[in-house]
């Protein structure tokens, strides 16, 4: 694997301008002060209860995501480039989903294969011909970005269902402001705290009917969900009710919530619940987390669900590989942010290549997430690779493969002091009826283990505050 590009010290060791101040500061601050502040940060996180649950782990029901106190810095120019690419990407995602559920031009044009849509478990026949307000489907997107050198940013993954992590972006900044006020006095960092306002404005703009103040709620699966903290955090910041399925009911195709003063109409539901569980009358019959009849209210146009139902048809890893073509088809533009080259194992010649090059590739499940069920070729031993080979051969359509990218690194505080660790970036893109809003920065995830490329929190990854310098 080639030597990774470090965002502070570049490849040749010369400190890049955006990091000059930080680098000097890091050099001066004694290690024990940093250690102390890190412990303080951890204490605060634990105290506030910013925890997440890891599925399949007993006892360790609530864990902290490691927080790294060294910020990751992007320049204004870098950010401007990124945000243009993100906006373009989300626009194309929305047009693609609309098309897939209405005229299906892109299938007729033979650009995306039919079976990738119709046989996709995330495709919802129920959405066919369904009008959604303002033709917007993905109101809240999280696009994962990786970097390999000063100029190359790639989109690694689109998250068009219920992307999470934004609470960490906001809390990380709060903690940094509290622990390192001096650093903020030395830098002009673009604020992120307006995210909650932006989100509320976006959600309100999506109300199915104008006129009165729309009633916006956040729908959570409940306290056992791994992202529950985030759900309650957002409800708090937005000043809206955090509801569970049992708090809502549908009468005459209108959604109401049960309040101490009787039923109250609900207009916009920011749901953090998967499609499958939304409505036991339309989807999984055994779902107790959803709202019986919700889809009938949705189909009648009396409530907006964000994101729309069926957006998963646009964000699995097989569709991902078509994104550059999708962008060209709908917008007539070249993608501003390139994809990572991707082999689709469903195609025989791609599969052949992948099987021949397993030790150097990253292979992922089409519908996988959270870093589960993937193979990182260069980091695996022979036995692991052979085992994976069998899995891949048994169901090739379920996998894609990508070259192992030398993800950029950022200085990170570890046991032995400051050392480079691999990072990615998840900015959050809000699409309302009035405009697209992107808060500068996003969530930087960092692989805390030396050399590791897996940044997922479920695999021990941590997070960093992300700074976009205003000047």
């Amino acid at each position, binding site marked *: 694997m080639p030597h990774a590009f470090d965002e502070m010290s570049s490849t040749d060791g010369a400190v890049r301008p955006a990091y000059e101040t930080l680098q000097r500061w890091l050099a001066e601050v004694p290690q024990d002060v940093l250690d102390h502040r890190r412990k303080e940060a951890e204490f605060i996180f634990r*105290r506030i209860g910013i925890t997440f649950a890891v599925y399949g782990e007993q006892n360790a029901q609530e864990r902290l995501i490691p927080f790294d106190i060294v910020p990751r810095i992007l320049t204004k120019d870098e950010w401007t480039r990124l945000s243009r690419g993100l906006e373009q990407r989300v626009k194309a995602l929305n047009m693609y989903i609309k098309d897939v559920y209405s005229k299906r031009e892109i299938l007729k044009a033979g650009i995306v294969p039919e079976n990738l849509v119709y046989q996709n478990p995330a495709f919802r026949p129920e959405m066919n011909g369904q009008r959604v307000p303002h033709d917007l489907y993905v109101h809240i997107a999280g696009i994962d970005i990786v970097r390999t050198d000063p100029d190359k940013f790639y989109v690694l993954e689109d998250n068009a269902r219920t992307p999470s992590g934004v609470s960490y972006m906001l809390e990380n900044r709060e903690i940094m402001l509290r622990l390192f006020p001096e650093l903020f006095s030395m830098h002009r960092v673009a604020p992120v705290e307006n995210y909650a306002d932006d989100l509320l404005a976006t959600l309100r703009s999506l109300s199915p009917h104008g006129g009165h103040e729309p009633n916006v709620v956040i729908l959570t699966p409940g306290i056992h969900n791994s992202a529950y903290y985030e759900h*309650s955090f957002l409800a708090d910041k937005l000043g809206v009710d955090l*509801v569970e399925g049992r708090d809502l009911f549908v009468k005459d195709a209108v959604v109401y919530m049960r309040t101490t003063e009787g039923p109250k109409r609900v207009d916009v539901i920011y749901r953090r619940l998967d499609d499958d569980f939304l409505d036991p009358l339309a989807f999984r019959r055994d779902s107790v987390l959803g709202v019986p009849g919700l889809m009938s209210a949705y189909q009648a146009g009396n409530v907006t669900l964000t994101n729309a139902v069926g957006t998963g048809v646009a964000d699995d890893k097989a569709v991902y590989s078509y994104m550059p073509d999708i962008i060209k088809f709908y917008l007539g533009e070249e993608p501003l942010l390139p994809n990572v080259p991707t082999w689709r194992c469903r195609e025989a010649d791609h599969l052949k290549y992948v099987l021949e090059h397993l030790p150097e590739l990253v292979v992922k499940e089409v519908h996988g997430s959270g870093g589960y069920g993937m193979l990182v070729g260069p980091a695996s031993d022979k036995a692991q690779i052979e085992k994976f080979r069998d899995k891949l051969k048994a169901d090739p359509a379920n996998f894609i493969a990508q070259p192992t990218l030398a993800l950029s690194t950022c200085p990170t505080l570890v046991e032995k002091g400051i050392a480079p660790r691999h990072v990615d970036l998840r900015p959050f893109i809000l699409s309302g009826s009035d405009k697209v809003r992107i808060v500068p920065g996003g969530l930087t995830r960092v692989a805390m283990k030396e050399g590791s490329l897996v940044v997922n929190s479920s695999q021990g990854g941590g997070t960093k505050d992300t700074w976009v310098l205003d000047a």
Partner: protein
Amino acid sequence: MLSRTADNLYWLTRYVERADCLARILDVSQRLAYTPVTYGGSTNEWSSAVLTAGCADEFVARYGPLEEAKEENVVSFLAFESENPSSIRNCFEVARTNARSVRTALTSEMWDVINSAWIELRNFPNRALTRDELSRFLAFVKETSLRFDGATFRTMLRNDGYWFARSGAQLERADNTARILDVKYHVLLPEKEHIGGPLDYFQWASILRSVSALTAFHWVYRDSVKPWLVADLLILNRQMPRSLAACYDSLARNLDDIASVYGRQGPSQRQARAMLARLTNKSIDDIFQTGLHEFISEFISDNNKLGAEITEQYLT
């Protein structure tokens, strides 16, 4: 507000109150159990602790007959056991679960108390505690409820959420006081043979202690401890925050506040007011004449009825 949110707030405070009450019961039982028998100590203090906590059936199912209840079993059952749905540990667990699901309706100070207590709880070992450890544990529980009440009082907006939270606590508190009286009513009855003897003094004092009212008693009555005065203090005296009358004073007011904000009142307001009127109009002599036991039993069932009415009217 969401019915579920109100419901969670209401139960959150009930569980905190219940934990506090259990801690006091254990405290007093321990004290009585170490008092020599000639001074009113008895061997069945532990069984009456279980009775007062209202979980006799569960206890008997696990440890056999109540009369043979042993200290270590009762302590572990009331304080720690997860099989006992109202053990202190479970109260804190449920309180925190409720708090987590209504994070947005709590102030950060209130959440902090509950969450810290829940974290702290894990520092107490699951085995039988030494007497020292037990004392520290009980102090921790009482302090948590004090901090929680304080945080609620000092930081929470005075709106429906606050009133639901307070109503839960008051309802639970009234229930707890009534239970203590229900289990111990016989020592307060005047026809008991060695009335006024040292035995009774310790029993009466222990009742007062279990609601932290021994000092208050002297301030209020400026008299030696007498059974009818103990009953008066715990049932009718509105100055005493744990008395039934004080709880209903506060309950009726909280429920009226809710009704006036919502512009509508219902069965729970009527029930609370009727009960407050009864507590106001009766004298302790009336109560002793018609039967202390009957009065308390009726109160407990009426108090439960009010709980059901609040649930029906607002929380579902």
